[in-house]
């Protein structure tokens, strides 16, 4: 796995946590759809890349999964955020906000012509 994917995975993990926090238990498809919608479809992900992230979060204990029945009466695996996942989310939201703000400000600087 290259470095770019790693960064992407970290970001994706945050998005997954936020989605589950905001919307309650969801299956993988629902999470993917939600991330696409939240970004106004600007962000288009390969849905497959979600699963390693889900597995990692589950191994860390940030989310839990169980089999259930989806809205169209199919068997599906539902994920929900745990207490420790909420803590993790709270801890990571602030630095992320600061980082994006700084980067945003930086990019907003007008070039000085010489």
């Amino acid at each position, binding site marked *: *796995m290259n470095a770019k994917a790693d960064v992407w995975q970290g970001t994706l993990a945050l998005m997954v946590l936020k989605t589950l926090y905001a919307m309650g238990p969801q*299956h*993988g*498809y629902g999470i*993917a759809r939600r991330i696409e919608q939240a970004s106004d479809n600007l962000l288009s992900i*390969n*849905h*497959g*890349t979600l*699963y*390693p992230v889900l*597995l*990692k979060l*589950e*191994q*860390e*204990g940030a989310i839990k999964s169980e089999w259930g029945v*989806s809205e*169209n009466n*199919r*068997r*599906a*695996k539902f994920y929900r955020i745990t207490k420790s996942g909420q803590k*993790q989310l709270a801890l990571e939201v602030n630095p992320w906000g600061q980082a994006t703000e700084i980067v945003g400000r930086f990019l907003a600087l007008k070039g000085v012509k010489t």
Partner: protein
Amino acid sequence: MIRTLRRASNRLLGSLWGHRRADDLTEELEAHIRLLTEEHIRRGLPPEEARRQARVQFGSVESTKESCRDQRGLPALDAIVQDLRYGFRGLRKNPGFAAVAILSLAVGIGGNTAIFSLVNGVLLQPLAYKDPHRVFAVREVYPRLGGQVPVNPVHALAWAKECPSVEQVAVMRGNRADLTSGGEPVSIPGVDVPHNLFALFGVEPILGRAFLADEEREGTDRVVILSESLWRSRFNADPSMVGKSIVIDRQNHQVIGIIPGWFQPSYGISSATNVRFEIFRPLVLGQQERLRLTGNHNYAADIRLRSGATAAQALAEINVVQARFPRLAGIDSELKASLISAHELVAGRARLGLWMLAAAVGAVLLIVCINLANLLLSRIASRSREAAIRTALGASRGRQFRMVLTESLLLAVTGGALGILFAAWLVQLLVAATTLNIPRLDEIRLDSGVLGFSCFLTVLTGLVFGLLPAWRLSRGDPQEALRAGSHTVTGGRRGLRLREGLISLEVGLSAALLIFAGLLISSLTRLLQVEKGFDAGNILTVDLSLSGDLYADETNREGFFERLLARVSAIPGVLASGFVTQLPVRGQTWNDPIYLEGTDRRHTVDNRYASPGYFRAMNIAMRQGRAFDESDRGRGVAVLSEKAAKLLWPGEANPVGRRFVGEDDKPKTLIGVIAEVRAVLHHDPPPMAYYPYWQRVPGGGALVIRTAGNAYAAAGALRAALRSEDPQLPIRDVHTMEEVVDRSLAERKFQSTLVMTFAASALLVACLGIYGVVSYSVACRRNEIGIRMALGAQRAHLLGLVVRHGMAPVVLGLAAGVGVALFLSRAIRGLLFGVQPTDPITIAGVTVVLLVIGGLACLIPARRAAGTDAIAALRFE
């Protein structure tokens, strides 16, 4: 931190439950794609197109699965599990190889574990005393006579007073104690000790108290301390025993304490060091004993050094004291002492033998390892294509290396587990073999230290025989292996060279082991054939000890022996019967000086008291004169062995009729000179003096009867005679004299049997190795042999060719092995008897045996090769 830990543990679990999770994931991913497809259909796409879109949007299912799989388990652990599974599969496919490997390893590791538990228990574990390095047993030495003798109590008491480096001295005397309380009368080893013995060793009684100085006097000495084991076995560990009275030697003794079961003083006299003293009584030194400045070397002595003092200092101080005694007694002799550390006293005699066994069994395991490496190498040769394909498909060398090593470790661990079970059984067998005179044998068990050793050995073994094949396999050039196709002549040759080297090693080690075994066995046969000085056939013996008030009186003892001997000689089938204070081959005894009246030269000899019938019963040859008989009552007479007579009258051809002073300081007339009798089988006979028993009636000894037929037939009658003479007399086991001789050889028999077994298994394993390598080389050279046959080579010529090639490493190894044995066998000189370590007959014998067996192992594959059909061999390509 916690997150990382939790993740790690989850991954570990993931490794173990990987299968179920993987199925789960597949289902989940399928569900996801189905939902995506349905959404596209809702948007109006035709199903076919919807499914395609969904797949595009999802990305690669396989790569998702793969990254999940990598993340789920621990890749390294997974690889190990995979290697293990692979190893199991490989072994299952080849059960013959697996069985041979595991069994040979079990025997090798089991044997090593068992011998190590002996070495550990006897040699390595420290004694349980307080500061055992400061405790020494002392023996006195007459340098001119070249002998160590037990201690004279007067000398020992002087060391205690005069040597500043010696903190404490304890003089003691072993005996047999007849215990009548608490069950059937028994006679068990006891020892009379001074009050400070327990303090000297730093041992506290577990109940009651130690002796008081006051109890070393006549009248107050009727107290006894029991060993914990006796207290438990005979008195049911009853704590109220302390203070009670029990009957020992027909006298009441008050029990005052119980001493821990492991405790034994260092008793440096008896040749049987595994005698365990169970009854401790205070030592009372009578006025007589305190006055005898020389002779009377009938005691053992232990000393404790003052802290900071060295053994050399103490010895120097003791030797200063020693020098005085011969002068005081007016004897022209030098007297010194020697110190033996407590540990040395216990382990010293057993050390050489045990290390030799350890080395031998270690060599067997090494041979097993070499052989397995060899077998694995041939398996690898046949797997080199498989390995090449693996490498070509991207398996790393490290992975290939690990795979082979895992297989060998799997074998080692299975063999090791079996081996530990085997060792547990062996150790039980060893400990049960009570005839073995190995010190501390009862302390030996498979403890955690021993188990640790065998685990270490198991892993080491796996590495030793696995590394070489693993290295070779992972180093192979896949291109070459694949290109070479089915006839891997060049690669095979290179492998063959290595395997021939291993064969040389195996043969060399086996040769050395066989030579050692041969030397030990020829020592044993020589010992069995040695001129003992008596005839052991058809003799029955029983040990006697008379104790208690009844026998305190000499005339009572004399009457007992007289009546008993009369009764015994009346038993039908008894040809001759007699009594002696100490049987031959049971060790030296009663070492006291005899001398010519009016001279200063004292000659220490082995003194024995016997009944007139003894010499006839034992068939000891008279050289000159006659044995004593009943008509000698009232006269001071004696019989000397040839050596003893030579000591007194060096130049005289027939000294019979001359007079000398016996060990009892009374004048004796020499009435006969008798043949030498061995006091210990493996030493030359000491000079001996025999006196009629009525001159100084002993309190114990051995009865011997010679019977016309089977000696055991008279055992019942012998017991009955003893019972009717004294129903209270404890009767010990009745043995034949052959058993007595046998028992004195038990340890040597044990050693040589073990080494012979080791050597035989080494030889067997080496044969398998030779056979395997020659078969392999024949298989490699099938084409060559086919061509030779096609060109008209004779069958005999081909046979010779194969055998010659096969025997080359054998001969090389044999030469090396003989060299090693010549070099090392000097180390076991102490275990040999009548054989030089370089005994040419043994070496020649081993050479012939190895050449013949090695030749046979070559011949079988050679015959197969010579029977090859030329056409078939060439077509095989």
